[in-house]
């Protein structure tokens, strides 16, 4: 455990009866956790529920918390388990709202805006290009196996080390290294395919 983790100190204080230490934990981690869960379950409302559930579990764990790792690893471990449970529920087979909405918005923008008008505005063209690119990567991310997507997100976006990701996903560092790499390779291939299709 790294002693310097201020969130571990906050959690220890909270466990010691300092209720005010809980709020900064939510302030610090609520938003990134929401984005992580939103990408994983691809449903904003569901992600909100899972954020609440994760912090409720943190709250309830105050009597048995052991500061053995970074707080974020422990927090994401709880969140990941909840997300995986959610993804395994039968009703999850339906299309995912947020990704579809984003893709729909991007598609609508692509189809509805005449290219010659956009070309007169360099900023608008850049924005459209950015939307197109993010649309592709978002779609590709949603097609990855769950754990690959999670590992890549935690490492590349959240900046966690392989050791921290391993704790969050309850696996080994070696597995994380493989998961992250496979996810990257798959994303490069899928995004490339999408761009080739678009050009054609």
């Amino acid at each position, binding site marked *: 455990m790294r002693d310097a983790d201020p969130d571990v100190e906050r959690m220890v204080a909270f466990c010691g009866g300092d209720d005010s230490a809980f709020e900064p934990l939510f302030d610090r981690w609520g938003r990134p956790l929401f984005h992580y869960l939103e990408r994983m379950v691809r449903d904003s409302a569901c992600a909100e529920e899972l954020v609440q559930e994760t912090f409720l579990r943190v709250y309830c764990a105050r009597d048995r918390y052991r500061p053995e790792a970074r707080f974020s690893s422990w927090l994401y471990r709880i969140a990941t388990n909840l997300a995986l449970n959610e993804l395994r529920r039968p009703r999850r087979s339906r299309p995912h709202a947020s990704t579809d909405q984003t893709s729909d918005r991007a598609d609508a923008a692509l189809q509805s805006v005449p290219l010659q008008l956009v070309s007169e505005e360099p900023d608008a063209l850049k924005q459209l290009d950015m939307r197109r690119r993010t649309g592709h990567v978002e779609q590709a991310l949603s097609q990855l196996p769950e754990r690959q997507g999670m590992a890549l997100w935690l490492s590349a976006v959240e900046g966690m080390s*392989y050791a921290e990701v391993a704790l969050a996903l309850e696996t080994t560092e070696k597995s994380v290294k493989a998961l*992250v790499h496979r996810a990257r390779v798959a994303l490069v291939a899928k995004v490339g395919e999408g761009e080739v299709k678009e050009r054609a």
Partner: protein
Amino acid sequence: MRDEDLDRELSALLDGELTPARARELREKVEADPRLRERLAAFESVDQRLRSLPRSPLPADLRARLQQRIDQLAGRPEREPVPQESLRSRASLARWGAPLAAAVAAGLVAGWLIWPIPVSDESVQLLQVPAQTRVIPEQPSPVPLPESDTAVADLSDEELAIAFELETLRDLDLIRELDLLEALVGMETMEEEGRG
């Protein structure tokens, strides 16, 4: 090293998971090989796009909802958000309520002073026999009035109260205070007469 392993090393390089020596060695290879350079650039591009994905804001009421659930868990009374309308009503009540209450209280006091409250016989009896507060014991016959001050001084407070048919011993204290006042006034008068 196989291509697949090298590819994996590129990924680890991006994530900062290689030792400084291994990272330096790999960077030198990348600079010398356009294929590796392209591969590393493709990985970097994907990471960059992931980081720039649009992110929804955290719902503003999420904290409140979490707090509500924590309160439920802890068995604390829920802190419901107070609507603005209700806040305005409370402010208005606070502004006008105190003077209004004072006016009503003053009216009640005035009414009580002006109009005698009709009291039934039953309630009079109840008022006359406050079992817990009545201090003076019942006596079959009144004690004869003392004939001298010495005799009065020998009587107990209770006997005196009965002798003067007082309701409570507090009245006796009052009489004593009046006696004291009279005595003081008498002394002052005597002093003035002496000076004169």
